[in-house]
């Protein structure tokens, strides 16, 4: 099981409802592997990390410039 950020509009097989882009969903590995390959989801943790890294880099740049 892992947490993923939704990229494409999804339809849940269990509830029949839409899962909208931007939402965080918890998926089993098999389902996640298929959707990751299609680009319909991205790992939620990895994306947060990359955002944090970006922010850290921007802060470092600002410090250097000062």
């Amino acid at each position, binding site marked *: 099981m892992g947490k993923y950020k939704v990229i494409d*509009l*999804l*339809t849940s097989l269990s509830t*029949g409802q*839409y899962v909208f882009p931007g939402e965080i969903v918890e*998926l089993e590995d098999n389902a996640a592997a298929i*959707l990751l*390959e299609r680009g*319909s*989801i991205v790992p939620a943790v990895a994306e947060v990390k990359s955002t944090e890294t970006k922010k850290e880099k921007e802060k470092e740049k600002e410090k250097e410039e000062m």
Partner: protein
Amino acid sequence: MAQITGALSAVNALVEYSANGTSWTDVSGTYNKISPGGSTRKYGFKYTFDGDTAIITYGKREPIEITFTFIYTEGASDVYKTLEDLHVAEDGTAFYMRWAPKGATVGNFVYSTGSCKIVSWNRPEIDSESADPLVVEFTVACSNITRSTYTT
């Protein structure tokens, strides 16, 4: 370019009906064919005295008509009676349809009508020379067909 390998037929397709867009009923065992009409965008054009081609401008996307065909049966809760009742109700009653050409498996596309009403309803055609099951065709109009991807 290498020949593609992902081609499919409709052999495993899924069709679902919903009265409210929340709870869905699998009606794959009744439906026979789905023919989505073209998704068109309005456009206009005018000519001027100069030049040989038109000046063209574009508008908004037009509504889409989808024609469904299903097997005619006469049970009290069967598709024929259910849908005819929706159609002949005062002002018409809205419902929802969706279908998955590749079936209900994670990663497959699902196409949904959103809320729609029947705009053309046909009674079954009967032909003494045919041995085919009787079918009924109807058309709904909707503002858009939404594509999504099945997940768990």
